[in-house]
């Protein structure tokens, strides 16, 4: 059985994102007209309101923008302490996530290069792959 995690916010556009995650592909919607990348998934481009989009595969590279360490436990699935990190992706969007459990807040620093990896996950929508970032090369 995969690791239980707090439930995802699900809608038709999020579902497409998670379907790519099944193949371990981190993709975001790219506007078919003005080419803006948007995150989280949404019905239209916030820049030009176009409904046309494709799912752009991302490089999986980024750098640390900020992070925190939870010392209070909010979710049974995440015992404290556990870090959360905001990664500024090479393509521009900011991706907020956790790290693999072997990494701690003290492993992070401003602008530290980060790379994509995947964790197993399950919620009431089923088993899935959770995209996360870790210090590059570690």
């Amino acid at each position: 059985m995969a690791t239980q995690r707090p439930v995802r916010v699900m809608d038709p556009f999020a579902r497409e994102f998670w379907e790519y995650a099944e193949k371990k592909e981190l993709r975001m919607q790219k506007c078919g007209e003005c080419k803006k990348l948007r995150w989280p998934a949404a019905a239209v481009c916030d820049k030009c309101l176009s409904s046309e989009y494709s799912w752009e595969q991302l490089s999986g590279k980024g750098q640390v923008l900020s992070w925190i360490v939870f010392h209070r436990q909010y979710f049974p699935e995440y015992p404290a302490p556990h870090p959360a990190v905001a990664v500024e992706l090479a393509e521009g969007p900011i991706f907020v996530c956790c790290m693999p459990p072997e990494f701690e807040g003290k492993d992070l620093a401003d602008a530290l290069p980060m790379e994509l990896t995947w964790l197993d996950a399950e919620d009431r929508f089923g088993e899935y792959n959770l995209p996360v970032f870790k210090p590059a090369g570690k």
Partner: protein
Amino acid sequence: MARTVEHDRLKALKDTVSVVGVGESDYLKDYRAGAKGNATEKGSGAMNSYQLAATALKRALDDAGLTKDDIDGLVVGGPMSTERTCEVLGINASWCVSGDAPRGIHAAVQAINAGLCHTVALVYGNAQRSNDTAYGGPRASGDGILSYVYYAPWGMTSQGGLYSMMFRRHQLVYGTTEEQLGAVSVAFRKHASMNPNAVMYEKPITIEDYMNARYISEPFHLFDYCLINDGGVAFILQRSDMDNGKNPKVNISGLGWSEMDIDSTQLRPRLKDFYYPAHKNVREQIYPMSGVTPKDVDVYATYDSFSTHLLFSLEGFGFCGEGEGGAFIQNGRIEIGGEIPCNTSGGMLSESYMQSWNHQPELVRQLRHAYDGGPRQVKDAEVAQYVHDVAGKCLSVVYTRGN
């Protein structure tokens, strides 16, 4: 970004509306209603939101020397519905909207000037402790704000977590320290210690207490977080020329509003901009409209679900430079008696977590000189400013003491 503000039309609203009555519930007494004077147990169901709002409204009406029959407009805040609020209070107003305090003030000033109503009650009640409202974790709803719930699969949750991440970014960019930030919590506790209705009355803390308190979401310590308590607030806005003169006159002299929602779920306005662009847009509205500058502001209040709101807003509104907030707030500058006294009731960190509402009666009373002769009074206060920079928007209100 589309921004159309016709400053001449905005300026015409200056001093057209007065705050004629203020009231609130018994924050401390209600908080200490648990067994043996302890805090009310979360989820006890001891109080309901409408009861708290009704208490506050009756006090605001008494303060104004008005009755509920004088009310022809209503703003309803917090978790209350407009229908049930009007039903419980027995008011069929000609105009009624939902909103937080600053949005309600904006709307009421416009409605009064449009001739839709002349005497507006703004009411709020929130039995959030009795109802065990969750602001993080599996039960958090986030009021429709997606970033409060979207990152749950990654374990990221709570408004506190987001603001803590914003503060960490401020630390990385500007070198701000936790100890510097602690000056906010210490100052607001000091103010609450002068306020017999504050939940944290007579419970001052030192910077050592602040630093030694446990982390909740590091770098945030316990005292960076607001309270969770039950309470209600009400105040009455009236067309200025109708003011019966029962209380010293307090006018609404400046209004400003700027949304900053684009890329908000990915936290760009917080982590890249600290909401500064929204602060700047608002200050370009309120200062010209009210004819004051930050140097003229005698008493200041900011939304303070977390300590950092003060840091970011003082920078964004030009009280100090961007990134200078950590040093600026030291040495009593933000305390009563200092250069810019902030959240003089104790704010949401130490008086009552009324989600923008408890700040308004306090600013009004400071301008009335209601505490004259006591340590809580900001001496000769003539100009007060409220700043509301939270979750994708900034609003501000400037109040002045009238003649």
